[in-house]
């Protein structure tokens, strides 16, 4: 690898600071008592405690999945604290009463809150460690009937809705980490768009892990009723610690007839240092149920952080004519490992799905695409198109593609294409011969490579994603 490339791929993490704030941290360890403690702290109704305990009992019988193409030491689930919350000075009435230290943290991270939020026209819910600390624009959204806020609040204000949908897309016993989440989840966002309402602004949640040795287990639930539509954004960062922290979130989306949910993520959890020490284990289950006819669920993700990423945002296309989409850019560097992709489960007639995945590996990293396309016998006329491209920067990294295609209906058409390319010396020389230096050349090539995915992001995030990739791979540019 040329010196130019080598310099380009070694950039420091800019969100690695720790906020000095008093926190209420539960002792490490997991038992039935821990769960009762979490439930009691949140003053939860009995049905939710039962939901958690049922998950916990099931989790005890489960094993960690071995099939992902990632390697990490065994996680000691008793060495993790399952609850950490910034101590509020008093009950929050408005944004102005949020701890100024917290506000400064989010300013540093570039999260639009307050007047910045107003300018950007984005409603923001902020999750700090395990609890939601602030939600903007609540009032304005409420006027059109949209419920947007923390899930622990929704449990009290809209218990019927939460009870009706929680665990319906990702069942309690779905997989090891999702089951753990069902037992111990602390907070997350809840969003309900009533029948016929087009959400007037993008909704956004920022997740921040601050405390060392705490796990973050948030739970997000988004429901779009008949004819509703919403675009939801999620951003994540964490401070730099030498230990690994576990992030095991669950996201459930439900789209009823003619509803449309677009979910975008820019994931920039701390990735560990250049020797692979520290960093977040990002083991996440995200799934959308396109339940109604003509409904649409679209996932867009830009994954640049985490020591290990293990996530497959999926679509269950149940309604006839429903549409599932997955657009992903995953960048790995140093010793990062990513095993990510999607599942498109076609059940309804004439269901359609599109998968566009772009993986970039640099350093000693390992980047795998793993995707499942399943056409059920009922899914007459189903269509899938998948495109998975990998780019290698340097000769110490690896890229793998594992598409699983299972077709049970002979009127379906499934197409999958994959290719591998590299940023080569020849390309860089060509740019140089036209007066363009190495860093700018790499930036152009990478942005060109990822264009199909960036186009799917809302404007705000597209800019951020481009910058992030810049930080990740381009040295001083940007």
């Amino acid at each position, binding site marked *: 690898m040329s010196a130019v490339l080598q310099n380009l791929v070694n950039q420091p993490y800019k969100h690695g600071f720790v906020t000095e704030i008093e926190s209420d941290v539960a002792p490490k360890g997991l038992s039935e008592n821990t769960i009762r403690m979490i439930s009691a702290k949140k003053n939860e109704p009995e049905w939710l405690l039962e939901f958690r305990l049922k998950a916990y009992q099931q989790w005890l019988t489960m094993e960690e999945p071995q099939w992902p193409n990632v390697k990490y030491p065994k996680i000691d689930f008793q060495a993790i604290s399952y609850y950490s919350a910034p101590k509020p000075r008093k009950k929050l009435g408005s944004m102005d009463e949020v701890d100024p230290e917290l506000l400064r943290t989010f300013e540093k991270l570039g999260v639009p809150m307050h007047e910045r939020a107003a300018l950007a026209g984005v409603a923001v819910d902020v999750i700090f460690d395990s609890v939601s600390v602030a939600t903007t624009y609540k009032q304005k959204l409420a006027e059109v009937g949209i419920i947007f806020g923390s899930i622990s609040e929704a449990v009290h204000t809209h218990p019927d809705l939460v009870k009706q949908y929680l665990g319906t897309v990702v069942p309690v016993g779905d997989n090891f980490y999702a089951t753990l989440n069902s037992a111990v989840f602390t907070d997350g966002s809840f969003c309900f768009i009533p029948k016929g309402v087009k959400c007037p602004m993008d909704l956004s949640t920022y997740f921040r892990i601050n405390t060392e040795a705490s796990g973050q287990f948030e739970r997000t639930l988004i429901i779009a009723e008949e004819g509703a539509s919403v675009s939801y954004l999620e951003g994540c960062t964490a401070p730099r610690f030498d230990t690994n922290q576990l992030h095991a979130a669950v996201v459930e989306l439900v789209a009823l007839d003619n509803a449309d949910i677009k979910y975008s993520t820019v994931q920039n959890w701390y990735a560990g240092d250049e020797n692979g020490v520290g960093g977040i284990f990002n083991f996440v289950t995200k799934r959308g149920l396109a339940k109604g006819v003509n409904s649409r669920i679209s996932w867009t993700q830009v994954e640049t952080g985490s020591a290990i990423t293990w996530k497959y945002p999926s679509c269950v296309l149940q309604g006839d004519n429903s549409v599932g989409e997955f657009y992903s850019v995953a960048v790995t560097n140093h010793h990062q490992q990513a095993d990510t992709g999607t599942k498109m489960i076609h059940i309804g007639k004439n269901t359609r799905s599109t998968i566009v995945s772009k993986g970039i590996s640099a350093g000693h990293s390992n980047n795998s695409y793993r995707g499942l396309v399943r056409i059920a016998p009922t899914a007459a006329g189903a269509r899938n198109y998948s495109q998975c491209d*990998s780019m290698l920067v340097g000769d110490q990294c*690896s890229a793998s593609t*594992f*598409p*699983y295609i299972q077709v049970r209906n002979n009127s379906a*058409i*499934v197409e999958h294409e*994959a290719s*591998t390319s590299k940023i080569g010396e020849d390309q860089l020389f060509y740019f140089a011969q036209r007066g363009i230096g190495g860093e700018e050349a790499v930036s152009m090539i990478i942005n060109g490579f990822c264009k199909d995915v960036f186009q799917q992001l809302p404007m705000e995030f597209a800019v951020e994603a481009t910058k992030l990739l810049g930080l990740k791979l381009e040295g001083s540019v940007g």
Partner: protein
Amino acid sequence: MSVATASGYLESLLQGRAQLPISPLAWLNRLRAEAVERVGALRVPTTHDEDWRFTDISSLTKLPFQPVHAASPLQTAEAERFYLEPATIRLVFVDGMYAPQLSTQVPGAAGDSGIVVTHLSAAVSAHATTLESHLGRHAEFCNNAFTALNTAFLHDGALIIVPRDVAVDMPVHLLFIATQKEAASYPRCLLIAESGSAVTVIEDYVALQQGVYVTNAVTEIALADNAHVNHIRVQRDSGQAFHIADCAVSLARASRYQSTSIALGARISRYNLNVQLAGEGAECAVDGLALITERQLADTHTCIDHIKPHGSSRQLHKCIVDGAAHAVFNGKIMVRPGAQLTDSVQSSRNLLLSGRAHVDTKPQLEIFADDVKCAHGATVGQLDSEEVFYLKSRGLSEMTARNLLTYAFGAEIIERIPVSSLRHRLKQTVLEHTQRN
């Protein structure tokens, strides 16, 4: 099925070994003993094993298949219909046992070149050193219960040695005929192509009649520098049989391996093909066609392993699935660190002809070198309605149009077989299959 009973099943199969003669070669006895040990440690794979996710072979364990010990007195008249024209060098095995009365000798001109086409047990004294460096060295049995079983039963089989710079004009036909029900046979082939040599080998599995039996075959092929091997494999076992086979190929510098495998028979078939491009500039073309119907299952697992730079691989695998049949394809392309300038293209194409037919395909790329060109693709679908319409607009009936296009889909692979009589026969088979509807 529990692990205990499954491993017990494998051990019960080993009982048939009692009648095996002890080989005069100490290393061969050791190899078999190691294999017996591995059989003891392994179990029959289940759908919980990633490699067998889509292929449930638990029905195999319902019968205690044992090898036959007396050669079936098969008459030439019965075997003749499987012979290929024009002349081939032919070795025939009946229920896994060498049948000298049906086999041919290497004819004059070819014989003078020094080519060896014989059965293993006849070659143990003359070619002991060559055998020792190849037999059991390519087909790994450490984690493969069926290859371990085959190796445990290793006694006879086909041996082909093509000497340096010899190109054999006449194809070599290895014909394996199954005649008995509930029998297990363990065919074994070893092909050594010395540097600069060229040969075409047809591995052909046929059945005299319908019946439940097991074929568990292992083939090893070693290509030295610049050698060319064209390997055709036709599996037309009985529709009730089990066919499990493993083929390991090792390519040295600038050698070229071309493989065309056709799966037509068996109730459940599984073919593992591992091709190692272990020398710089080695090339392979690995093509396959599975044409199945009713309740057949055809599973093909291939691994093309690029180890050295400048290697090239091309793969086209096709499945035509009718009835309630189930096709499985798992094609792995591996590019190891240092295998720079690898050029690899893989394609999986699947045609589902009926509403109950299904397919699981998993083409996969694992790339550990940066300066490579790799692409793969997979499609599953029906016949292209535009093409059907085009043919109908030229006056063909819907059914004729469909049959013609189905035939063409399969013929693309069969066209790659360089032996015209076999090509013709297989096309006939595809034609009959497509006309059935």
